[in-house]
């Protein structure tokens, strides 16, 4: 029971980073759209958004990769110890 | 689209400072206390640069009125993070006080030091409060402000012209400084219109602009025989 609540909390915290990253992506795309609408140097905005958005997604991806990798192993250990 | 520009004839200018006073009254610019002014927080949209050359008793004094130059290629608008300062189609560089977050990046980027900042909530002596100009909004603490070429006058002038279904005639729109100048040293008009006085004066051999080498293309043109 206790392990389960911890796990849920961990999943929530991981989804928090995804919310953060998606929010940043939405923010930058919003700024990009504004700059296109106002014809205010959209080139600069496009350049920045192309670099920034993938960087954030890769960072969140690495964190998720580690999280999943560690937990898979933990489940295996628990299973084998029960058997 | 017209392109508004100002010509200041320094040979006519007596350096009286009437333009500064007219500007201050027209645009509801806050009156800063003497102590504040001494530490460099005085607020002028139309400033007067005073330089002294030579030594006593042979001193040459130069007085040059300096508004915002409304550059055609403004360095200030490029750095603004929130669209609070921008150049519109008629070449006016606008400052939107209600959007400004007060980062003062535009002040730093301006090579002409044309902008001023509201360090405190703007204040006026009681006698001034009753003669604030209702056409110009009051600024609040923590925003940047600058000469607008009296853009509020342009709105009215345009509306009058539209009502009468005609074009704006040369000299109809003039900022307060130009209107008040006792020697008529300040001309204002559409520099794209080849008929306008401003265009003709800008072609004069006496004309020069401040720091043309920066490529900012200021739209305030000085006329002077000196230099």
């Amino acid at each position, binding site marked *: 029971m206790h392990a389960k609540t911890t796990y849920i909390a961990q999943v929530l915290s991981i989804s928090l980073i995804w919310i953060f990253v998606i929010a940043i992506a939405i923010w930058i795309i919003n700024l990009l759209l504004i700059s296109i609408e106002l014809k205010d140097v959209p080139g600069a905005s496009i350049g920045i958004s192309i670099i920034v958005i993938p960087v954030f997604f890769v960072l969140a991806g690495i964190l998720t990769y580690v999280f999943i990798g560690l937990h898979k192993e933990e489940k295996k250990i628990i299973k084998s110890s029960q058997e | 689209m017209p392109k508004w520009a100002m010509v200041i004839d320094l040979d006519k200018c007596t350096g009286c400072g009437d333009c500064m006073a007219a500007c201050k009254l027209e645009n509801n610019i806050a009156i800063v206390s003497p102590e504040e002014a001494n530490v460099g927080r005085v607020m002028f949209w139309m400033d007067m640069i005073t330089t002294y050359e030579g030594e006593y008793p042979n001193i040459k004094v130069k007085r040059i009125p300096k508004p915002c130059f409304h550059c055609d290629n403004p360095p200030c608008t490029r750095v603004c993070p929130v669209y609070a300062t*921008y150049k*519109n189609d008629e070449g006016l560089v*606008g400052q939107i*006080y209600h959007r400004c977050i007060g980062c003062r990046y535009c002040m730093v980027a301006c090579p002409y030091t044309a902008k001023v900042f509201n360090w405190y909530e703007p204040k006026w002596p009681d006698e001034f409060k009753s003669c604030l100009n209702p056409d110009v909004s009051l600024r609040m603490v923590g925003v940047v402000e600058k000469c607008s070429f009296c853009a509020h006058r342009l*709105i009215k002038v345009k*509306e009058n012209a539209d009502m009468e279904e005609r074009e704006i005639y040369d000299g109809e729109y003039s900022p307060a400084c130009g209107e008040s100048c006792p020697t008529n040293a300040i001309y204002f008009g559409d520099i794209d219109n080849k008929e306008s006085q401003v265009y003709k004066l800008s072609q004069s051999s006496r004309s020069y602009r401040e720091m043309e080498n920066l490529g900012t293309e200021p739209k305030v043109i000085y006329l002077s025989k000196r230099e």
Partner: protein
Amino acid sequence: MRDLIKKYFKLLIISLFVISVLIFWAASGANPTNIQPIAYNHKLHIESVELICSDCHIYVESMPSATIPNISICEECHSDDPITDSPEELKLIKYIVEEEQIPWQQIYSVPDHVYFSHRRHVSIGELDCSECHGHVEEMTEPISYPAWLPSMDNCIACHNELKITKDCLSCHM
């Protein structure tokens, strides 16, 4: 003490939520009752007397502000003798006799840093009053809330639709 807080914590949160929702609902949904000094009937004046907007709001076509009618405009038709048997007219006559202005409440207003001109919209732009003010000719009650909120979003929406300038300096000063 701790248990008590724990026990009632959920209840407290829920009740706080319910109260705030109620307050919000009350503040937004509730119609303010008549806040004008006289229950002026627009419909009556427009239909039976055949007045048009600019008869009373006299500067709507020629000046930036349309103006709320001065009492002298009412006096042009109304005098000491009541025309109808409405009790509201008696109130008006009282103002006329005492030579006082009617304290109308302004409903439509823009902030200090916005320049809004009626003549720009009505005479030059040829907009109908109802575009912003709604169907005034069917109003039997006086106006107590704006039919259309003069917020920047609303202004920009219309300027976008009609392809009018969105230059900041054309409205802000």
